[in-house]
């Protein structure tokens, strides 16, 4: 009886698919890219389309196994801080767009049937029932007790394969000066901010109401702010990118020219191990000297490493102030072999390189082997800004912020300036 019923349902399903080919989710339907590749410059063979547009200040992206897309907003829009998107007619673009959740923030991931969401002072999760786009379940608190802060407040996170969640807790400071961002103010030594900030905290992924101070574990420290954070399942290890410090030139004009200040320090790609210490606020990475240099607030002269010889170096250095905002290790099979297990990084783009032109506003690619870059980095997707040279971030029409891999292997990129979601495919 059951078998007959199953057969009947199957036949009805197949019948409905055939009678309505445009709505068929399983037939091989070629997704047509946008004529101009959504304004992006991509390597040969790649194409892009606009999956959704003007959805709000779109920060990070999570994609469910059924292809449903979830985007975090830095500011609640239409009554929600999470945008839930679905492509029902399978043309590759979202046609159902719902807003949900009272929180806004940056971190968002789908994990074990839940949407995890990182607001600035709390990490919550929403149970997703089978086939459900908008979660009906009330949010549960996973991690709390994060101090409200006016800079580097976002709480991006990632999961390992052993039931742990890693949350970035950025430093509410530039260089831990007595008076933040004030010329002549010395660095506090030791920097008390590091007790609850400036690092990556580990929590249990499945335990409710964990308090940062009581239940959180400081997994790594000396990281000013790592908005891009990702567990690499192949290497079984954590990686992150730091937003380096600002204003070396404006506070220490006798030590740094405008040009040096625009190029120092490098944005660092970090291989993060348990108890790693990358040296903030005492140290910064000089990509020309290829070492961690003692910060002038702590007696540095722009050259000597001092105590920083103990700080861990990055596995790769990127142009200063370019603001790496997301990291994705590509495991799909749609893209050519060279991209497999490599890292995509979304660079939000700088604001403080003036008088030099701003830098970033692209998605970069880094080939990987054995947990380290196996070649130089390259710009993978460019043209988000929509103008030649960005002198001020407000000029950029779009700014890449979040990355996600869809079940078909296409790459999603979010833009938090005008709320565009790009979808990049190969052939």
């Amino acid at each position, binding site marked *: 009886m059951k078998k007959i019923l199953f057969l009947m349902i199957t036949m009805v399903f197949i019948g409905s698919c055939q009678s309505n080919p445009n709505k068929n989710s399983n037939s091989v339907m070629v997704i047509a890219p946008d004529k101009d590749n959504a304004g992006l410059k991509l390597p040969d063979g790649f194409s892009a389309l606009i999956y959704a547009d003007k959805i709000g*200040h779109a920060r990070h992206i999570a994609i469910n196994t059924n292809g449903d897309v979830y985007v975090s907003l*830095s*500011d*609640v829009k239409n009554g929600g801080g999470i945008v839930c998107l679905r492509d029902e007619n399978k043309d590759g673009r979202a046609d159902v767009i719902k807003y949900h959740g*009272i*929180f*806004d*923030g940056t971190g968002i991931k789908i994990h074990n049937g839940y949407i995890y969401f990182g*607001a*600035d*002072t*709390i990490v919550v999760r929403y149970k997703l029932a089978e086939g459900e786009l908008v979660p009906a379940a009330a949010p549960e608190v996973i991690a709390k007790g994060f*101090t*409200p*802060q*006016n*800079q580097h*407040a976002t709480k991006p996170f990632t999961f390992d394969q052993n039931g742990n969640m890693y949350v970035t807790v950025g430093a*509410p*400071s*530039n260089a831990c*000066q007595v*008076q*933040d*961002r*004030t*010329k*002549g103010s010395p660095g506090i030594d030791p920097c008390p901010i590091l007790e609850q900030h400036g690092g990556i905290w580990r929590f249990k992924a499945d335990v409710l109401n964990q308090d940062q101070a009581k239940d959180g574990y400081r997994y790594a420290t000396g990281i000013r702010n790592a908005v891009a954070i990702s567990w690499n399942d192949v290497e079984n290890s954590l990686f992150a990118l730091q937003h380096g410090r600002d*204003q070396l*030139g*404006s*506070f220490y*004009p006798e030590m740094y020219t*405008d040009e040096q200040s625009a190029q120092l320090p490098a944005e660092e790609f970090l291989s993060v191990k348990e108890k790693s210490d990358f040296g903030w606020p005492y140290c910064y990475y000089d990509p020309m000297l290829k070492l961690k240099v003692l910060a002038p607030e702590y007696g540095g002269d722009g050259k000597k490493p001092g105590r920083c010889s103990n700080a861990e170096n990055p596995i790769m250095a990127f142009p200063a102030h370019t603001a790496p905002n997301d990291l994705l290790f590509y495991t799909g099979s749609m893209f050519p072999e060279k991209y497999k297990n490599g890292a995509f990084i979304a660079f939000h783009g700088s*604001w*403080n390189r*003036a*008088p030099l032109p701003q830098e970033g506003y692209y998605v970069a690619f880094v080939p990987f082997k054995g947990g380290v870059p196996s070649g130089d980095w390259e710009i993978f997707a460019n043209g988000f800004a929509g103008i030649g040279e960005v*002198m*001020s*971030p*407000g*000029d950029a029409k779009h*700014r890449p912020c979040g990355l996600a891999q869809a079940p078909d292997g296409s790459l999603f990129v979010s833009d*938090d*300036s005008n709320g565009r979601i790009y979808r990049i495919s190969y052939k």
Partner: protein
Amino acid sequence: MNRIIKQLIFSVVSGVFVISYMNSNGNEKAEAVRSEPPVKEISGNRPAEPAAKEHPGKAVYIKYCLVCHQASGSGVPGMFPPLKKGSWVGKDPKELVLIITKGLSGKVEVNGEVYKSAMPPQAQLTDKEIADVLSYVRSDFGNSFKPVDVELVKKVRSGK
């Protein structure tokens, strides 16, 4: 709830983001910045003759405000509010003086856009520098508001 908390939290972090060359002569750097094309191109209405006198507040702006509020007064999306037409620069000058001398932290909304960051107090500026820079931003970036008098700055600072 989170939003309410954010709104309540003012000045947890005192200083941020506005460049300060305090107590330094910084002339060389200010000159270098001043020669940049974007700064020159801000104002289309200004006479092009070399004899045209530069607004005294412009140098103050370049030195203390430009990094965050940008050469064109556009600010930085999501972080630092713009000073362009329709922004807060047309507000009561007394409030503007307080923003400069006391700083401003937390979430603000300008022209329907939200900005979350912090501006450190610029208490090192003289009364005249504050009057000059306020008068400058109120007359540039597409604004045409009355200049701010140094006497008003004095009055606000003395709390009278």
